[in-house]
């Protein structure tokens, strides 16, 4: 686990600690939108920078799915008259995302692919844990809770997809950069 993924894990896990107050619905809405927007931005960067067809396809999917989830979240917030409220978790997520983006922008080729995908694994795992331990238990409004429950399988699928890609990319990196004479 590198520094930035550790940061995400700590941010979301620390937030889930019982000593901290449970987030309010407007804060939950903000966290949902923030997490989705972060992954859309990372996906767009990967679509631009990666030369790997599978990584590009995965990145496209992250952009499509997380944009769709944000659309639903925005529609629900409007319907319920909830104004998403910025909070410590959203701020930490944004800071972590800025660091990740800065790091990714300095990488290319296989190094970029590997960093992007391994970060996606950690990010989706952290989001899944936050959904299970914090967001679903804390959500007061039933429709907000239902939306998060409905989003969960997509996050789980993304995690499995990212893990599969990560394993493939790790296999490649073990061969080194020299040509492989099988």
């Amino acid at each position, binding site marked *: 686990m590198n520094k930035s993924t550790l940061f995400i894990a700590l941010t979301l896990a620390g937030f889930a600690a019982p000593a901290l107050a449970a987030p309010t619905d407007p804060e939950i809405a903000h966290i949902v939108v923030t997490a989705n927007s972060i992954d859309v931005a990372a996906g767009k960067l990967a679509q631009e920078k990666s030369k790997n067809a599978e990584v590009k396809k995965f990145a496209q*999917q992250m952009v499509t*799915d997380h944009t769709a989830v944000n659309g639903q979240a925005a529609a629900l917030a409007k319907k319920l008259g909830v104004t998403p409220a910025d909070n410590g978790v959203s701020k930490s997520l944004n800071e972590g995302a800025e660091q990740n983006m800065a790091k990714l922008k300095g990488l290319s080729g296989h190094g970029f692919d590997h960093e992007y995908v391994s970060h996606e694994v950690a990010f989706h795992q952290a989001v899944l844990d936050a959904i299970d331990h914090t967001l679903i238990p804390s959500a007061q409004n039933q429709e907000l809770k239902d939306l998060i429950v409905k989003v969960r399988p997509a996050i789980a*699928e993304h995690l499995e*997809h990212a893990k*599969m890609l990560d394993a493939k990319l790790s296999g490649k990196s073990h061969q080194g950069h020299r040509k492989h004479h099988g």
Partner: protein
Amino acid sequence: MGKRLGIGGALLALSLPALAQAGEVEIAITGMLFVPSRVELRVGDTVRWRNEDIVPHTVTAVGKKPSFDSDSIPAGGEFRFTAKKAGSFAYTCRFHPMMKGKVVVKR
């Protein structure tokens, strides 16, 4: 009276096989799964997939020349496929390769 019944019976006999041929099997796409994941039908039957998820999906037969490929089905959208030949068709979602289903078409 007897004649009328006879005509009615003949009409019924004609319409029943037609109904049987127009079978439709429904599959929900929900929670990133095809539900049910395996269906059996007969040649001439139609499968209807409904996307009940938030995100778009596809229904794409596995293989180099897929027997069916829905392209993107938006949230709330549908895709229909009428089975023209017998066989076992494994399919997936092009967007989410972890999703898998199977359509078994019998004669």
